[in-house]
């Protein structure tokens, strides 16, 4: 029985979140726009129009190139990829795959503790096509060209992945990099990050690659692994029966859980590329238009570096550091909240203690609420200042931990700050010994039975009495103060 090895390469498309489109000044943000609202003669492909590249989109390709350790090509040029499809108004897509702007590069991924380099073949820049809608009823399709002309990155990897899991981890790491660089929303469900997978099998030890099959339509992280697993199994079965794998494009059908052969537009695969005569070539190192020092200065601390820093600087666990850095905004929220706390700069020990508290709060309270509401940290009504204020109050015994959680729940719902809620509800913790004493005296009077039980040596009765005092104060009495005074008064009884 021959043993086979799985070989996976990915082609990833990511929309850039520039303000305007790739070759015209149309608004690149169309979420709230009417169909075809954000279009102009250039992206509609009217004759006589002239596309002019968006400088920011080009700078961002270089930024990603630098982040992935790729080589910036001394020269690149746009070209036309010709095909007819209703979502492509010009009947060609302006792309740059033949002479791409970034060559090579790598992403380091970690699977089960093993670090592995996934090499990047190249990164190129192109324009997205429009969107087609296929109403279920009716023999027609609808075209919306708002997306036509959106800057699109294509990242092509070498066939360096050996398991479906590795492909998923690679995609997650790449998404994180795109988000940390703030160049793409990189959301697969919303289609601004898309991935095609090339899959082939070869006998273990063989150098040449087997026949590859391209899988399209993978549009969620869950699907990456499932679609590739299915395809590997399908090819394994064919080879097991001594049949041949046919080179083709297959689409992942999520509802059927299968890949299916696609025929439509891939049938005549001849795109007749030629250089785009309307756009002069780009030579980033000649002239002063592209400033690589500036682009290098934009390179932020990426997720892996930040996670490591959180571990070193704040003494967080690996797991907590990874959760907090899983979202750039969340990592910022954590550090901003921490910086907002008084005494934070006093010494490293205090900083680590407070960091642990803030981290626990964010992970167990804030994230739990966000997940439940299905929103992200940027939509959270509680800003870092208000959270810091709340945590500081709890830290100083002004409110109990339990009350703090209740106040937070209301802050999360209403966006009010802790001070407003405490005032409106009279929730301040009662540490005033006089007020506590009055309540305890009442409790002792009302609970003579348990009091004598306690005197008779039943320790449990003490807990019961504490509970009664806390109930009377509606949970606002400082438990430590109650504890001390109750002991004191019982001794005197």
């Amino acid at each position, binding site marked *: 029985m021959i043993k086979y090895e799985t070989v996976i390469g990915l082609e990833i498309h990511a929309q850039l979140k*520039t303000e*305007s489109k790739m070759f015209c*000044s149309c608004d690149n943000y169309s979420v709230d726009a009417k169909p075809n609202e954000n279009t102009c003669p250039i992206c509609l492909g009217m004759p006589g129009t002239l596309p002019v590249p968006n400088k920011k989109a080009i700078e961002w390709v270089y930024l990603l190139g630098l982040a992935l350790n790729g080589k910036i090509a001394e020269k690149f040029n746009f070209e036309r990829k010709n095909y007819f499809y209703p979502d492509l108004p010009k009947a060609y897509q302006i792309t740059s795959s033949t002479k791409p702007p970034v060559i090579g590069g790598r992403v380091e991924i970690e699977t089960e503790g093993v670090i592995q380099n996934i090499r990047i073949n190249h990164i190129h820049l192109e324009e997205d096509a429009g969107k087609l809608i296929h109403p279920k009823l009716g023999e027609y399709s609808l075209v919306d060209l708002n997306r036509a002309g959106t800057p699109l990155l294509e990242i092509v990897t070498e066939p360096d992945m050996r398991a479906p899991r590795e492909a998923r981890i690679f995609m997650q790491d790449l998404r994180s990099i795109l988000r940390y660089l703030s160049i793409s929303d990189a959301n697969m469900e919303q289609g601004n990050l898309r991935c095609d997978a090339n899959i082939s099998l070869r006998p273990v030890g063989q150098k040449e690659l087997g026949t590859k099959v391209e899988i399209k339509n993978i549009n969620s992280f869950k699907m990456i692994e499932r679609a590739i697993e299915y395809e590997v199994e399908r090819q394994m079965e064919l080879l097991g029966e001594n049949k041949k794998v046919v080179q083709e494009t297959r689409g992942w059908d999520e509802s059927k859980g299968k890949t299916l052969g696609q025929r439509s537009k891939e049938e005549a695969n001849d795109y007749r590329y030629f250089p785009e005569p309307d756009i002069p070539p780009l030579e980033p190192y000649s002239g002063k238009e592209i400033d690589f020092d500036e682009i290098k200065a934009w390179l932020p601390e990426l997720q892996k570096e930040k996670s490591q820093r959180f571990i070193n600087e704040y003494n967080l666990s690996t797991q907590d550091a990874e959760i907090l850095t899983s979202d750039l905004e969340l990592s910022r929220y954590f550090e901003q909240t921490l910086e907002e706390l008084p005494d934070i700069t006093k010494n490293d020990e205090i900083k680590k203690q407070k960091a642990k508290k803030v981290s626990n709060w964010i992970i167990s309270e804030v994230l739990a609420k966000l997940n439940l509401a299905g929103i992200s940290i940027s939509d959270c009504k509680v800003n870092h200042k208000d959270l810091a204020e709340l945590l500081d109050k709890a830290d100083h015994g002004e409110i109990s931990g339990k009350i703090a959680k209740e106040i937070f729940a209301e802050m999360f719902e209403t966006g009010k700050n802790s001070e407003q809620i405490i005032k409106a509800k009279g929730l301040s913790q009662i540490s005033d010994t006089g007020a506590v004493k009055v309540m305890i005296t009442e409790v002792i009077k009302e609970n003579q039975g348990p009091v004598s039980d306690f005197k008779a040596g039943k320790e449990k009765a003490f807990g019961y009495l504490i509970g009664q005092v806390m109930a009377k104060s509606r949970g606002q009495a400082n438990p430590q103060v109650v504890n001390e005074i109750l002991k004191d008064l019982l001794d005197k009884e």
Partner: protein
Amino acid sequence: MRKITKEQVEDLAKLARLGLTDAEKTSLAREMTVILEYSMLLDEVDTKGVQPTSQTTELKNIFRKDCKVISDIDINEKLQNAPVKEKSFIKVKKVLE
């Protein structure tokens, strides 16, 4: 001497979404062969060191600032070339997924 075959014409017609009759295919194959022959005169010239002419302006690095401009052209005007519309969508024959 290279000849354009009828099959090549059929492939091109398919890519260009043109429906051709059999007679048109035959005559196009003949005509295209003549055109190709003519352009093959270039093969006789030594073009070593001659720059491709896809670019003739000698310009390079032409960009625009990333800045959106809200078009003052009305959607209806933009879509006036679309044969069929539905709301502000362009309506086309069903495209298979």
